[in-house]
């Protein structure tokens, strides 16, 4: 990894640095999760809560996390429980940091499964299996039978029955998962991120170029097909449902907010951990903004213009919602159909899914760092022991997600509770921590240190008053909806659906484990503090 004290010759050109910052933010959320959610919530209407969340929460909170992380790092803490303790020295504050461990580790458990799907699809394109599938799916009039691709994907992930994906040997989801898990484990265990970083300097721009090629292909299809597809994605009102009616759905606001958090890695505990290793003179303001801008470009301008319009063109409006049974699955059905209908589709398909796999692996590697930081600084374990312990826990989690594959229920449950609900809770706590405990003025001064840009002062007021109020209103609306409706009720599903209940039970177990570790860490920190006090006396 880069030595922050040395000049950045190794990064080559300045553009290379920008690409690295952008590439770091790009992941599966941009090309798979965002389009899935947009399809679920009528496209254009979804963009309104999405951009509101970006302005009110995403950008301000990203700045706040970078600043709080560096603030905690300067006081000797790198994990979220430690950083929270440094900012708010109260008994309970480190325990709230459990969410900053649970979210990245919990997301890792299903993210690595998605990574495996990307790798598998890259392999299928490379070896010609997708081309073979395309031949089977090609109808006499030249169009493509969507059912063939849907069935193939459903069979691959085992969406019919639980346990269907747990077949070892051959080109199965389990085989690819084990390969991905091993690759992640080796990279993290041996601290070999340097190689993959350099590779990503080339890979990320290539992913963007590849996405631009696909975009060109989608937008150059006959206009009578493209027009309604773009309308589906961008029209703020849809037939039979007004914009106001769509906006009344509090779950859409919750999920749009969570998408901003998921995509920008805000409320994860990851940025705050990594920022704790920065130097005082580093520019957190422009680093954060460039990263967010790169991410948003890939998500809205590329992800938004590719996956949904392609899905609409090939599947039709009704089927889009049916395919999007989990937020992530849409791209695996629609994108192969796009590749199948374009020149050099086999090569572009391989390149796209492989680069997506690389983007995913750079993200997943960083997901374990918050927990590693706690195990190291709190319990005094070395990196290898910490990684081994986390590797064991996350392997069980990933197998759990893969086993309960019917309807991708376990994946969707993890994504909702860990990838939405807890991100939301952590974000709320962090706005309070920044705006009220650290203080907006002190926080803004921390953001300004070493920065090439001066962020507007009203961002401080936003983080102090508007952001927490906004989060609370959405949260209250969601609770009310859960209380009053049966459809999509996530709380009742815990007791009504066995797999949902088991998934939530698993999340609770992991939480309890992390709380125990934090308890041990707090004990060590307290002893250390007493010893320091005695020395100073």
């Amino acid at each position, binding site marked *: 990894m880069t030595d922050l004290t040395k000049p950045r010759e190794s990064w080559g050109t300045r553009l290379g640095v920008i690409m690295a910052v952008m590439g770091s933010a790009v992941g599966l959320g941009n090309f798979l999760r965002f389009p899935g959610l947009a399809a679920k919530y009528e496209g254009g209407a979804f963009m309104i809560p999405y951009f509101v969340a970006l302005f009110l929460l995403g950008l301000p909170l990203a700045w706040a996390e970078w600043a709080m992380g560096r603030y905690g790092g300067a006081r000797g803490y790198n994990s979220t429980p430690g950083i929270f303790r440094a900012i708010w020295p109260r008994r309970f504050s480190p325990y709230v940091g459990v969410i900053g461990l649970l979210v990245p580790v919990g997301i890792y458990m299903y993210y690595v499964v998605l990574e495996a799907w990307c790798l598998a699809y890259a392999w299928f394109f490379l070896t010609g299996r997708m081309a073979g599938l395309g031949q089977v799916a090609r109808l006499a009039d030249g169009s493509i039978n969507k059912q063939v691709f849907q069935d193939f994907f459903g069979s691959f992930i085992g969406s019919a029955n639980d346990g269907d994906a747990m077949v070892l040997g051959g080109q199965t989801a389990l085989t690819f998962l084990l390969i991905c898990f091993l690759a992640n484990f080796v990279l993290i265990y041996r601290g070999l*991120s340097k190689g993959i970083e350099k590779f990503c300097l080339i890979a990320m721009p290539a992913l963007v170029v590849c996405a631009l090629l696909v975009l060109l292909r989608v937008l150059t299809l006959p206009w009578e097909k493209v027009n309604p597809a773009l309308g589906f994605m961008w029209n703020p009102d849809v037939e039979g449902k007004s914009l106001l009616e769509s906006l009344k759905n509090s779950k859409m606001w919750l999920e749009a907010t969570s998408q901003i958090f998921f995509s920008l890695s805000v409320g994860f505990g990851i940025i705050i951990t990594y920022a704790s290793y920065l130097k005082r003179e580093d520019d957190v303001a422009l680093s954060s903004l460039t990263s967010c801008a790169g991410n948003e470009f890939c998500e809205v301008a590329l992800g938004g213009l590719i996956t949904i319009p392609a899905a609409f063109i090939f599947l039709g*409006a009704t089927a889009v919602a049916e395919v999007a049974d989990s937020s992530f699955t849409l791209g695996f059905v629609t994108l192969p159909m796009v590749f199948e209908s374009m020149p050099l589709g086999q090569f572009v398909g391989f390149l796209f899914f492989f680069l997506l796999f690389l983007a995913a692996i750079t993200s997943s590697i960083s997901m374990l760092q918050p927990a590693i*930081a706690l195990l190291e600084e709190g319990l005094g374990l*070395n990196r290898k022991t910490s990684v081994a312990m986390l590797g064991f826990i996350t392997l069980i989690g990933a197998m759990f997600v893969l086993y309960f594959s019917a309807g991708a229920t376990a994946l969707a449950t993890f994504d909702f509770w860990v990838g939405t609900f807890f991100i939301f809770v952590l974000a709320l706590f962090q706005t309070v921590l920044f705006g009220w405990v650290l203080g907006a003025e002190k926080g803004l001064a921390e953001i300004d240190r070493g920065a090439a840009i001066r962020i507007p002062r009203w961002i401080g007021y936003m983080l102090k008053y508007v952001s927490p109020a906004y989060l609370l209103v959405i949260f209250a609306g969601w609770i009310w909806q859960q209380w009053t409706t049966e459809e999509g009720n996530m709380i009742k599903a815990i007791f009504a659906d066995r797999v949902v209940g088991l998934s939530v039970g698993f999340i609770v177990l992991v939480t309890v484990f992390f709380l125990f570790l934090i308890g041990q860490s707090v004990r060590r920190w307290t002893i250390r503090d007493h010893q320091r006090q005695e020395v100073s006396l």
Partner: protein
Amino acid sequence: MNELATMLVLAQSADGYRLSAGGWVVMILSVGFVTLLLAWCIWKVLATPGETNKLHAQADIDPHDADAE
């Protein structure tokens, strides 16, 4: 015959989604904003001397412990 009927239904439902004036506005504002924001960030980084030494992403930040083993 059935296929023809299905195609007609699909065509009708597709027409219902034709890009409206509001859709054009949302699309241009959304795509335009994210593109301009990224362009501005790139310009700012390139135009500020020494900025590349101070710019970081999580991928290039060293958590110190990695090299300790």
